[in-house]
């Protein structure tokens, strides 16, 4: 197993007002090349801070300790070229006044040194790969003309346009309804497999993470609670907090909370 990235003693502190708030404390975690790793946690767990730290997107005001070694990459990663990032709200990561074809082409042109016409052709191919309906006319569309699920497909196309080694999806399906969410998760799984990418899937949803990932890391209050294979975390968690998360999940087979005596009519 080759580590794409080795995170060692990573500590991130944000300054809020006059106070220092620790968002991550002493995190050590390997991201194995080619794996699908899920990072799960509730609000304030530090899971998004971890994603931002890996992508080099932390705000300048944050204080960072520890290190991230990119032994599997052999160079300092560049966001866009080596790391593709998909956010929860795709409309916030796309330029509202640029056609979606140009936005995807721009990534390919910047990082792959393509000409505009080569990059435009690649954009169309990418829109086909993310299965956007009618890619020929979609390249000329603007983000606001698409539905939420379609916009997320475009954001994914832009994220993988330069052929990154690592794809980070930070709550990328959380704002979508269940049916669209399942489609986007299937799409991410397929693209990651086809391109041999490593996936870092950040989610609050333990069931969704378990369906997609081979390994799961559980975060709480800025600390790594435990990590393991998906089966190990789901069936034999060693930490009480992980069990709490598993037990709080309400699935299609959970015992009803309702007293089934029914309404007093």
């Amino acid at each position, binding site marked *: 197993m080759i580590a794409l990235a080795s995170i060692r003693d990573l500590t991130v502190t944000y300054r809020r007002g006059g106070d220092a708030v620790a968002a991550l404390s002493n995190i050590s975690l390997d991201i194995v090349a080619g794996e699908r790793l899920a990072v799960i946690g509730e609000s304030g767990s530090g899971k998004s801070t971890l994603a931002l730290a890996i992508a080099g997107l932390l705000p300048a005001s944050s204080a960072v300790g520890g290190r991230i070694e990119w032994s599997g990459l052999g160079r300092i990663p560049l966001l866009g070229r080596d790391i593709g990032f998909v956010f929860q709200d795709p409309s916030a990561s796309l330029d509202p006044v640029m056609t979606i074809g140009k936005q995807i082409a721009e990534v390919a042109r910047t990082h792959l040194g393509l000409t505009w016409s080569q990059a435009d052709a690649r954009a169309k191919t990418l829109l086909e790969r993310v299965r956007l309906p009618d890619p020929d006319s979609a390249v000329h569309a603007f983000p606001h003309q698409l539905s939420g699920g379609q916009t997320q497909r475009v954001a994914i196309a832009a994220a993988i346009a330069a052929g990154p080694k690592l794809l980070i999806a930070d709550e990328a399906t959380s704002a979508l309804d269940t049916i669209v969410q*399942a489609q986007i998760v299937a799409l991410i799984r397929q693209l990651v497999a086809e391109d041999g990418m490593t996936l870092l899937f950040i989610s609050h949803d333990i069931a969704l993470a378990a369906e997609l990932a081979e390994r799961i890391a559980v975060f709480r209050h800025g600390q790594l609670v435990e990590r393991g294979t998906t089966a190990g975390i789901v069936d034999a968690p060693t930490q009480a907090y992980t069990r709490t998360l598993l037990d709080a999940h309400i699935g299609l087979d959970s015992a009803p909370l309702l007293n089934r005596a029914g309404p007093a009519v």
Partner: protein
Amino acid sequence: MSLLAVSNLTRRYRRGGKTVVAVDDVSFHIEPGETLALAGPSGSGKSTIARLVLRLIEPDAGAIEFEGDDFLALRGATLRARRARLQMVFQDPLAAFNPRATVARVLDDPLRIHDIASRTERPRRIAALLERVGLAADLAPRAIHEISGGQRQRVAIARAIATSPSLIVLDEAVSALDVSVRRQILDLLLDLQRQERIAYLFISHDLGVVRAVAHRVILLDAGRIAESGDARAVIDAPQSTIGKALVAAAPRLKRTTQDAS
């Protein structure tokens, strides 16, 4: 007599010269103390139905009968008085409240507007409401933006029950909460229902939660009722295309060992 009876409700929108039928000839009823869930994909009409029932928007056609009256015919003071019996909790309480208001102010408003308690009595009523939803009374002077999301949703529930409603519309009311908090809020809602026989119109995209808390469910697709019935029966064996798609898309946590607790 049903608590709420909705008949042939229709609401159209005009969008870019095109007419979209958001709610298309929908009929249903809710009995006292019952939870009826509305589920469906984005754009299926569930939130539009919630807003129609609350009379935040008016329908193009159809009738709404609430506590035996033609709810759509009520005007002015009569409508305001009846609104005390029909409350709401939304997904994001921060958007629903003035963020600079204190918890006490948020709870004082309904008591004052609906003339439920005198000025001197209201602080005691506010403390009792906070206790009722599992919050400490010393939370009252805190600003709404200072408290946690789970506390804020408890305040939203306290505000909703302040006027002794017979029906509360819960529009994705637990969707944005962390799983551990969500479970506590659902337990609170079920406790209140058992004790005070409040009915819920429970709007959610999460079929797992719907199956766990609702008596009956209506599955919506493109503004129409695709199927309806006992919540567990429908979700365990959906008959409609949209029902099958929703169930197939729900993430599953396959645990081989599970705590009996």
